[in-house]
């Protein structure tokens, strides 16, 4: 058994919210550089260079990369031998409040989806918890912007649609999204499970770093094929035409019911934020 104080959770979440918004992952920066070399469109190269400069400024001046500092999506891997002095949900929300306020991050959450009114501190967080063996907590904060989230979709496909149906759905979703999700994007795909779980899988897929392939060679090949097909659409950086539409495609799968074949596509913008800590 280990004791973890709620204060430690508050401070960790606050720090991750700020770091995720100020510092772009090294994998993303390297991906931009690789794409600049291959990009055929002059406008496309210009935009990718702007994204590199933007990341430099955000890091140096400690300001958010994007004004949409996102919905604070928190993934918890909670060790079953952990004891916490209080509510972990309250501690996470306090961390979000602290991080978004002290880090000058934009607060984008409306208290009621229809009646509106900004909560003023970007709470509540969306929290996904899985229980794991051990006496630690792994906390991942993945702030999610609205523009790319709006281009996401869940489809209850027929088992007969198979993997080709999945591929066509992903390509169609990216094509219809066009410039809206701030390409070059990262595409998360969930296959299997249930209606609600497949969306979680697609979101979880976005936590991977650029180049991390699915462990199953079958899905790793599908990821490579989808990335090629997406970039062949020509949408390009910010949708103004080019050979860089997505930086990677990540697939996560789960067992399914014999009657169901759920598929979800969750698109992330080029400010693909996720930061983790183990406490």
């Amino acid at each position, binding site marked *: 058994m280990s004791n973890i104080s709620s204060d430690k959770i508050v401070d960790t979440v606050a720090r991750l919210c700020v770091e995720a918004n100020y510092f772009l992952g090294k994998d993303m920066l390297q991906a931009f550089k690789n794409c600049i070399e291959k990009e*055929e*469109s*002059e*406008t*496309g190269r*210009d*935009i990718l260079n*702007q*994204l590199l*400069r*933007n990341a430099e*400024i*955000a890091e140096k*001046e*400690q*300001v*958010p*990369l*994007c*004004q*949409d*500092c996102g919905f604070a999506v928190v993934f918890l891997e909670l060790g079953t031998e952990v004891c916490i002095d209080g509510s972990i949900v309250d501690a996470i929300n306090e961390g979000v409040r602290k991080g978004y306020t002290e880090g*000058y*991050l*934009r*607060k*984008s959450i409306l208290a009621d989806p229809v009646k*509106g009114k*900004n909560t003023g501190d970007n709470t509540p967080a969306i929290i996904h918890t899985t229980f794991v063996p051990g006496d630690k907590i792994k906390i991942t904060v993945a702030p999610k*912007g*609205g*523009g790319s989230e*709006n281009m996401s979709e869940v489809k209850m496909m027929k088992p007969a649609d198979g993997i080709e149906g999945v591929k066509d759905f992903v390509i169609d979703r990216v094509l219809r999204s*066009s*410039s*809206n999700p*701030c390409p070059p994007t990262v595409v998360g795909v969930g296959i299997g499970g249930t209606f609600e779980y497949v969306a979680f899988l697609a979101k979880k897929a976005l936590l991977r770093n650029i180049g991390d392939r699915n462990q199953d060679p079958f899905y790793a090949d599908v990821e490579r094929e989808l990335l090629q097909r997406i970039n*062949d*659409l*020509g*949408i*390009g950086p*910010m*949708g*103004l*035409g*080019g*050979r860089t539409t997505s930086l990677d495609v990540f697939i996560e799968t789960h067992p399914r019911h014999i009657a169901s074949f759920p598929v979800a596509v969750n698109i992330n*913008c*080029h*400010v693909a934020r996720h930061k983790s800590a183990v406490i």
Partner: protein
Amino acid sequence: MSESIKITPPISDDVIMKLKIGDRVLISGKILTGRDSAHKRLYDLIQAGKSLPVDIEGQIIYYVGPAPAKPGYVIGSAGPTTSYRMDPYAPLLMEHGLKGMIGKGVRSQIVRDAMKQFKAVYFAATGGAGALIAKNIKSARIVAYEDLGPEAIRELEVEDFPVIVANDAFGGDLYQEGAKKYRR
């Protein structure tokens, strides 16, 4: 690469008719900000025959909800938001004198038709480059709807604010043309 065209609002029809898709434009001077909620309020006022809290004649509206300014900064990160959400309101604003819109992402056919009819232009700024774009904003003040927080209407003083003409007053659409060129 072609040289950038410099413009300063208010924008005349002569200037609009010189802008073509793909042109790089640097905007200096005063522009307005507005996004979802502010657009709905402006739209409702026009529909009700009432006057607007800001003059939009010849002006440019930048679709942005900036991050809060750190101490010593005039504004926080301030990149464009996705424009299609303003599509239901944009044609009426153009009918009432709006000449330019800055945002990111494709516009509907109705909005593109309105740009032709009322001689207006849609500029694309680089989405997600909020920290970089903020460098071109020299001052910011709220001029209407302070209660909307990041969605309040601000007047920004900008200098060489870099944009690309995505839709011109001739029906051109860089999103369609660009993707066609690089599709395989």
